[in-house]
């Protein structure tokens, strides 16, 4: 559609890591961390990636930032392919794509004051940087993330978890980015603080027109903040849909199981909810099952699932599902 303004487009991205090598250095086994995923992110919107640990969501984020060199596929940022772009081209747009980490403490230099941390990021950003302009910009950034101006003189260890995450956000904003990859930015925070940071994310998105790729394992958080959600399982995106639909119309058996595993706080609804308990654990990505990655744990699995990787099918409204048996799964839900 021409009216959509796509800022980031990921096409058939694969990221394989060597798992075992022979003495001669030949790789005999691969960890297929990300295996052929595609998605688009519209400008000013939030794309949420959810999945359990080891499903490849963080690796996807790292590929976008080119911390990992993708094995194959394309990542288009505007018109530039980030996978094949030269180092110098990447350097030019580096500031436009920023990253916010899960552990705000580990990502802040303990020996730099908060002001210094921001100053360093501002100086590297666009525009002139005499000391007065820098100082103003730092003050402005602190204000954006709702930190008091005197925080500039403090050190990271003097801040609370929520304040540190705010500082991490301020640093990411220092170079006027367009796209921010947020990797589990609220999962280390307490519930009452988590809400403050989520609201902050939404506020600055509105004010600055930012685009987010929001990576998290908490379905409720992702559903709250994202416009579109991609559910990952073992390196594949198994379902993408409008954030609204994940609760009302999940179609992939894994999405359903994931949803039913997350308890909700409405007492009557929760106590009467049907629960799908998955057997076993996520298989190792080194020995990923053939065919559909979910088939060994799926109650609707048929012979076809064991051999053939299901393709993404469009069910309208941008709802795409990679499953051979959506009809069987759908019927089952109705009967319950």
């Amino acid at each position: 559609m021409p009216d959509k303004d796509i800022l980031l487009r990921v096409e058939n991205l694969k990221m394989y890591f060597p798992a075992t090598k022979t003495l001669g250095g030949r790789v005999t086994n691969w960890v297929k961390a990300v295996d052929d995923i595609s998605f688009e992110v519209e400008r000013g919107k939030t794309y949420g990636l959810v999945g359990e640990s080891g499903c490849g969501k963080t690796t996807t984020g790292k590929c976008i930032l080119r911390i990992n060199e993708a094995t194959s596929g394309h990542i288009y940022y505007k018109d530039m392919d980030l996978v094949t772009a030269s180092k110098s081209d990447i350097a030019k747009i580096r500031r436009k794509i920023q990253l916010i980490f899960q552990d705000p403490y580990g990502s802040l230099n303990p020996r730099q004051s908060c002001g210094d941390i921001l100053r360093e990021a501002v100086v590297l950003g666009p525009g002139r940087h005499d000391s007065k302009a820098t100082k103003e910009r730092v003050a402005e950034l602190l204000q954006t993330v709702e930190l008091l101006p005197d925080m500039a003189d403090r050190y990271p260890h003097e801040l609370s978890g929520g304040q540190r995450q705010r500082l991490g956000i301020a640093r990411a904003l220092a170079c006027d980015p367009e796209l921010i990859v947020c990797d589990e930015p609220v999962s280390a925070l307490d519930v009452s603080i988590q809400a403050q940071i989520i609201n902050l994310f939404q506020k600055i998105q509105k004010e600055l027109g930012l685009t987010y790729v929001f990576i998290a394992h908490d379905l409720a958080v992702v559903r709250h903040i994202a416009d579109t959600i991609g559910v990952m399982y073992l390196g594949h995106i198994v379902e993408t849909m409008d954030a609204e639909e994940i609760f009302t119309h999940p179609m992939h058996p894994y999405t359903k199981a994931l949803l039913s595993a997350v308890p909700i706080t409405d007492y009557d609804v929760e106590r009467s909810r049907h629960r799908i308990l998955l057997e076993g654990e996520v298989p190792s990505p080194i020995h990923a099952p053939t065919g559909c990655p979910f088939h060994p744990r799926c109650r609707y699995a048929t012979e076809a699932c064991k051999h053939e990787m299901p393709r993404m099918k469009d069910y309208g409204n941008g709802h795409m599902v990679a499953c051979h048996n959506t009809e069987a799964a759908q019927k089952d839900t109705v009967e319950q």
Partner: protein
Amino acid sequence: MEEKQVLLDVKNLRTSFFTDSGEVKSVNDVSFHVNKREVVAIVGESGSGKSVTQLSIMQLIQSPPGKILGGEVWFRGENLLTFDQKKMRTVRGNGISMVFQEPMTSLNPVITVGNQLTEVLRVHHKGMTKKEAWERGIKALEAVGIPDPEARMKNYPFEMSGGMRQRVLIAIAVACSSELIIADEPTTALDVTTQAQVMELLMSLVQENGTSLIVVTHNLGLVTRYADRIYVMYAGRIVESGTAETIMKHPRHPYTLGLMESVPRLDSEKGEQLIPIQGTPPNLADIPEHCSFYDRCKYACEECLNKPHPPLREVEEGHCIACHLDVRGGREHA
């Protein structure tokens, strides 16, 4: 219905840590009880004293700097706080078991799972032979749903996944046939689908073996699903208590209310805003005389500032709050 039997009764427990910055009152006059076959949830944020309360019950507080200053912990008709460490050892494992958050650090990395399991068994059952203990260990692993338990007994903890390790810890509690299991954030380190498996396992113990369970958690969804009764802790005190149904439907303490409004919900309407609790929890080394939630409470009034911290009072049968006001919450009132 049969008369409810109280299994654990904690009265006015106070635990402090004496640090360079003064006395940190982690547990400040906490009372609660657990009935037989009951699932009790202690809910609170980090630093609210929920874990320290449990460690105090087990007398696992490191001293110094920590010290249990007062209170009573009645279990099987005896006050555990009068026990010395030697006598306490007969209670730990046999009577009360604890399952911790991080299963990797609670297991010894250089000893096989089987040896750790049998060690516990042989300490608690004098005269049990190694072979008998090994057999019971296998049964315990089987009971917690670990496939191929014979082979798994010879595994080291690092050879297992997080969910599997958590099962091993539960297996240790099962093997000792404890009457009470204290699970301190048992699923926080686990993925959601594994979390569901581990919680279902704990619940099956309650149903089949008649074990009582204390779940310490910050996850409100989890307590909605599994708990019979809930205690909400804030800054070292219990601020609200009641059955899971009353608390989740009609919370009446502003903190509980605030917690519920600040958690993103899967079933919320599109565009619904989260209402965070402003500010941060108070420094436990410097708790004010007045209500400790005063600074963050949106209902706070002058009365709250002038009076000392409100004691727990019953607002309806079995529902207590520590608040001067009576704020009605819940979906219907919101």
